[in-house]
């Protein structure tokens, strides 16, 4: 027994010693990540894993929205915009100890640019036909040449997590602050700190401060809210306004409103020739006056107040004011003026008969708005829009559909009249939205796949988007895209409704969390997040 005393005492001492417990950050993913391969990431949960584990050449600082060096200490884009040369950081190793060098960047770009991959990250680089060539100039210097100029080229590398060319662990060997230690499908993903992570803080201490991150998988937002209020998880990203206000009343130190996010809600009318809707309705939807009248009849201030509890602002256009560089500050505020709306409709031959709006042909103005079911904010907004349009004599039917049915109607069958959706996870650079604005594209939602632009303003938008895609200086690009925003605000192919605020939940036990508009809103600076001293003391 005496022989056991010392080891037992040591064991008890070890268990009782403060600071031995893991600093583990916990928050939820809303579904299983579809892949751990950074080249294939297309869903938000896989993107979370990529952000936390991937090492990138340059990082967009989500707070300043400026590029910062990471695995590349310097970079230069050629005058023709086709070549970018990176000077790589030396002495860096992957999480399994494999050294990092130019061959890994070459390997990553080769994988990414495989035409069979079909990944959003890879497609963002595709500016023209032809292959990318990578020239390894020295072991820590590489030059990448694209077949055509790529607008905002260097910023795209924020999404490219470098993979190892030689590690036996393949894509599981990472350069980011954490690596995937365990994955239990349907339950959680456990990340542990990368022992070979290259970054240190100003005092020379190795980063990240946290020992681990546990991402449990939970799709139910009500349960997420409950667990957060019980301190079982530490962060909530993109919280609903309802939950935010409730928590703000009971625990104001747990919630933060970071101001307008990059997200927006919008609606649009189906203007496609193949649309299986009545020709007189197609005529309404193609009328600028009609669209303007609908926009003027929607009380956006009420939407912000009622649906978002004041945590949103009326949207002015396709870009949120949170996008500091690209937002056109000259755009007019969206107006609410139902009398002006009726005047515009009268110009097009509409008139009120017994409180119902009818067109020239005597057809009562009635149309449906489809949106996805299960989104409470959107369902409330569409209910309020229905009431607003009823005031000017329009009868609106609201139909909530499950997502695949919705996608089929708006992307394949075109059998819908109006739709309401939101833009989330929006990139800062407008070039990533190229496919929305080009009239020939699949994503030109209101009238996709046009063989030639149906209207002069769409032709002008096509031209301007090509200008901004090929221009190498940001000022030219900004001028072109500012003009696109003006045209959109005037013609209203999309009627932008609100920009909701970035509402997040942050445990008071955490330090170093600075919520921002761009995603990931809370853990964008994951390396510097730590638990507070009080929490460490409370653990004693």
């Amino acid at each position: 027994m005496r022989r056991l005393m010392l080891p037992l005492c040591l064991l008890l001492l070890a268990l009782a010693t403060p600071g031995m417990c893991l600093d583990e950050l916990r928050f939820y993913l809303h579904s299983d990540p579809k892949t751990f391969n950074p080249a294939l990431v297309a869903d938000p949960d896989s993107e979370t894993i990529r952000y936390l584990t991937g090492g990138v050449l340059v990082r967009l600082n989500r707070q300043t929205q400026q590029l910062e060096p990471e695995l590349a200490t310097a970079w230069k884009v050629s005058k023709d915009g086709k070549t970018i040369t990176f000077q790589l950081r030396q002495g860096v190793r992957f999480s399994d100890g494999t050294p990092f060098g130019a061959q890994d960047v070459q390997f990553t770009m080769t994988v990414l640019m495989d035409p069979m991959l079909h990944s959003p990250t890879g497609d963002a680089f595709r500016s023209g036909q032809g292959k990318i060539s990578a020239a390894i100039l020295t072991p820590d210097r590489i030059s990448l040449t694209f077949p055509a100029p790529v607008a905002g080229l260097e910023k795209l590398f924020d999404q490219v997590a470098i993979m190892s060319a030689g590690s036996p662990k393949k894509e599981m060997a990472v350069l980011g602050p954490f690596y995937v230690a365990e994955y239990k499908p349907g339950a959680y993903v456990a990340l542990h700190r990368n022992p070979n992570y290259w970054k240190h803080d100003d005092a020379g201490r190795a980063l990240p401060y946290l020992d681990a991150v546990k991402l449990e998988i939970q799709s139910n937002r009500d349960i997420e809210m409950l667990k957060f209020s019980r301190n079982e998880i530490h962060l909530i990203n993109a919280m609903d306004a309802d939950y935010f206000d409730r928590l703000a009343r009971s625990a104001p130190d747990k919630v933060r409103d970071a101001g307008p996010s990059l997200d927006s809600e919008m609606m649009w009318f189906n203007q496609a020739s193949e649309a299986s809707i009545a020709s007189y309705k197609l005529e309404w939807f193609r009328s600028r006056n009609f669209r303007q009248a609908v926009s003027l009849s929607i009380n956006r201030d009420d939407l912000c107040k009622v649906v978002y509890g004041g945590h949103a602002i009326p949207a002015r256009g396709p870009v949120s004011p949170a996008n500091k560089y690209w937002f056109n500050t000259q755009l007019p505020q969206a107006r609410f003026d139902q009398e002006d709306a009726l005047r515009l409709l009268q110009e097009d031959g509409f008139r009120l008969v017994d409180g119902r709006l009818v067109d020239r042909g005597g057809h009562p103005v009635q149309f449906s708005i489809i949106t996805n079911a299960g989104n409470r904010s959107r369902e409330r907004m569409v209910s309020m829009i229905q009431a607003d349009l009823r005031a000017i004599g329009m009868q609106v039917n609201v139909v909530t559909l499950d997502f695949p049915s919705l996608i089929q109607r708006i992307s394949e069958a075109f059998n819908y009249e109006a739709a309401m959706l939101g833009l989330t996870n929006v990139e800062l650079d407008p070039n990533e939205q190229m496919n929305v604005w080009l009239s020939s594209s699949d994503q030109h939602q209101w009238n996709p796949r046009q063989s030639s632009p149906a209207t002069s303003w769409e032709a002008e938008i096509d031209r301007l988007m090509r200008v901004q895609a090929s221009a190498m200086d940001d000022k030219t690009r900004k001028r072109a895209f500012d003009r696109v925003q003006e045209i959109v605000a005037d013609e209203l192919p999309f009627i932008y409704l609100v920009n909701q605020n970035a509402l997040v939940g942050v445990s008071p036990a955490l330090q170093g969390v600075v919520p921002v508009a761009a995603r990931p809103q809370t853990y964008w600076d994951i390396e510097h997040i730590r638990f507070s001293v009080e929490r460490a003391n409370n653990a004693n």
Partner: protein
Amino acid sequence: MSLWRTLAKRLIMAVIVILVGGFLSAVLVRYAPGFGTDERQLDARLSAESHQAIRDESSAERGIASYYVEWLRKMSRGGLGDSRSMQKPVAQLLMERSGITLRIVAESLAIAWMVALFLVAATWSTHSAPLEKTCTTASGLLLCLPAGAVALLLILLNAPGYLALVAVVFPKVHRYLSDLVGATGRMSHILAARAKGISEHRLLLWHVIPAIRREILALGGVSIALALNAAIPVEALCGIPGVGQLAWQSALARDLPVLISVSLLVIAFTVLANSGADLLADERRQPA
């Protein structure tokens, strides 16, 4: 010998029903709106070629009859195909999740039946009208509560959310049982036995329940089907990584390989449970 023949006949019938059911499920999924679509079709970052490739991913599934035959052929060799939405083999997904669902369904069924039987027995023994009305109101209340609300309430009370299954199964089981017992209790031979002084417990155990054993077994069979179907929304609501959650996510993604596999599982369980109940009921039939 006749028992084996009966078993063999039932087994053949069960296999036919399962295979036909699997095909009907596949047809329902194939012709449902949204089949072949993918959320990535709304991703503006993807090129036109990528969008076309996404649309082509489900092209093999469009000819449903040939797809189903091919799928059965693969199944006979031990494969269930790959899930498009989860990008994993279906067999792996089912192996990871079925244990969880079986456990919560079994637990919930056991609790629901025990409570229902206890309350029915208590009402029978005490002949208490207030007790009977209270049970009616309680089961009525549970019928009126959405499963999501029950699950949330349970989590609020630090109880497992999956016990919402009990709230789904119990009121139906209790309602049928109490009406069956009540109706049987009014039969003349029961009244006569009571008049002769036989105790309520003996009456219930030896006379009433044997008389309605076939219905009870049938109810047992359908309660399994009820619980399996209810597991889908409950698991989806509570984020429990079982087969129910898999079924829900796959339904929203129109993931045909997963849905065929899950449907076959559910149909197989239902058919076997109900056939088993019928078999037991027939075997225990007393000679005339």
